[in-house]
């Protein structure tokens, strides 16, 4: 129970880590998710499980995590501040830890107005910074936000956060990461990287501040499945930058899907060269079957073993 997560141990052994992503379905039948998880088994260390992403009701992240643990796989449970107050977040953290979840990714969450329950009441009792800090204090100081003590120490949990170098104000984004690290983030996953030049500029700031030595930075990579998908991300997803040249490159390719994979592989290869990038987080939602190929062609297969 007290062993660190595999993801944390990967980083500790100095390996370049790979995580995947699973999007829970709108049903209690998890066969497809389990199937996708199985396909990626030997290619990723751990799986992010999204928490009602884009405010669309789906099976809970913790529910899917229980399935992964049964399968002998390692979840990264995403926890957003949108739907749960501090009582529920702290209680869910304990509940998930009780059956072996070690990795928690604390994030703000997309606003509820985007989803399929747009009349919902957005909670936002805590913000992501406070949630990160809350998890750290539960683990390190044995206290809840309100000051009560945990009855038993929380076993080793590995606290994650997100970082978005593509959001504004750009000059503040490295400082924001510093703040998350100070709050307790041990690893961060970034927004999907399409504008790698901007990512590199951000990493420069991050290195100047020495943050890469304090937190494991995983670059977010999403293979582009179609021109339409790229355009959608370019125009409709705030906090994303999809350069026009990239869209033109895919558009001009003979086999657009192959090109999308090629771009993802090139991105990962470039990320591996950047000082301070400790891993990649591959988000191939609705294209999960490509993850093994992407990981393999990026030179990251077979995955190293850690004890």
């Amino acid at each position: 129970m007290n062993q660190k997560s595999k993801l944390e141990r990967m980083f500790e052994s100095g390996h370049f880590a790979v995580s995947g992503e699973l999007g829970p379905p709108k049903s209690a039948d998890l066969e497809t998710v389990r199937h996708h998880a199985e396909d990626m088994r030997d290619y990723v260390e751990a799986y992010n499980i999204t928490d009602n992403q884009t405010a669309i009701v789906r099976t809970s992240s913790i529910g899917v995590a229980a399935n992964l643990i049964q399968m002998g796989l390692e979840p990264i449970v995403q926890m957003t501040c949108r739907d749960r107050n501090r009582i529920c977040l702290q209680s869910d953290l304990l509940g998930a830890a009780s059956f072996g979840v070690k990795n928690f990714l604390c994030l703000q969450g997309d606003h509820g107005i985007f989803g399929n329950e747009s009349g919902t009441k957005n909670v936002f009792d805590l913000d992501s910074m406070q949630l990160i800090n809350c998890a750290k204090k539960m683990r390190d100081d044995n206290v809840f936000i309100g000051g009560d003590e945990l009855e038993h120490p929380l076993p080793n949990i590995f606290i994650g956060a997100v970082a978005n170098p593509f959001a504004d104000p750009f000059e503040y984004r490295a400082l924001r990461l510093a703040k998350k690290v100070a709050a307790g983030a041990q690893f961060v996953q970034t927004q999907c990287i399409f504008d790698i030049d901007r990512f590199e500029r951000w990493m420069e700031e991050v290195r100047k501040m020495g943050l890469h030595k304090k937190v494991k930075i995983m670059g977010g990579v999403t293979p582009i499945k179609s021109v339409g998908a790229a355009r959608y991300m370019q125009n409709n997803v705030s906090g994303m930058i999809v350069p026009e040249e990239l869209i033109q490159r895919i558009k001009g390719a003979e086999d657009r899907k192959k090109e999308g994979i090629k771009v993802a592989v090139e991105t990962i290869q470039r990320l591996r060269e950047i000082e301070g990038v400790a891993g990649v987080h591959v988000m191939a939602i609705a294209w999960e079957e490509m993850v093994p190929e992407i990981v393999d062609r990026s030179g990251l297969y077979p995955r190293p073993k850690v004890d």
Partner: protein
Amino acid sequence: MIVGERKPLAEIAEMLKPFSKICILGCGTCVTVCLTGGEKEAEETAAALTLWGQKEGKNWDISTGTILRQCEYEYIDEYTKDWPQYDVILSLACGVGVQTMNTRLPEKIILPGLNTTFMGYPLEQGVWTENCLGCGNCVLDLTLGICPITRCSKSMLNGPCGGSQEGKCEISSEVECAWQLIYDRLTQKQLAGRMDEIQPPKDWSTSHHGGPRTMVREDVRVEPEEQTRTDV
């Protein structure tokens, strides 16, 4: 000020159906200034309802009036001294006014003609914007006058989320990102370093989350026997 929007005429007509003698009562303060519930709007609403009634075969007897502040007994009492016999009052005040009227005039039926929307100010002619949620624990000192609780769509206290782009909030290109504004403001005053401090979880108990709030000022309170309140 308190900002409201008039309810759709169809909704008002539906709630007035069971009645015949109606008073449409404007309020002379906030909702007059935001052009939704003053004397003029009371008259406009009366005219529109009369037309509606004619079309739908409803013979309403509609009068109008205005109270300077429907949220204070003093003004209500002054106005209702010679209060005529209406079946119903359609109040164009905010929810505070409607409820104060109800409390003061329990024998009457008072219905809301507005949806009370927010506390805010006129941004420009014809545009009002929300800027205070009344959370009971003001943080405008930290941000130099831009409320993150109200103006950040996620009420974040520790800086911008990942959805902030080109000064706009992720929820809409029409909404400014409060944290971009705060960042710019603090930078301008060479205080951006403030954003590095972790703001702890907010105590929401001072807000409505602590239950309906009452403020008591013992220093200005009147002895119980002197009180004129009827609802205690």
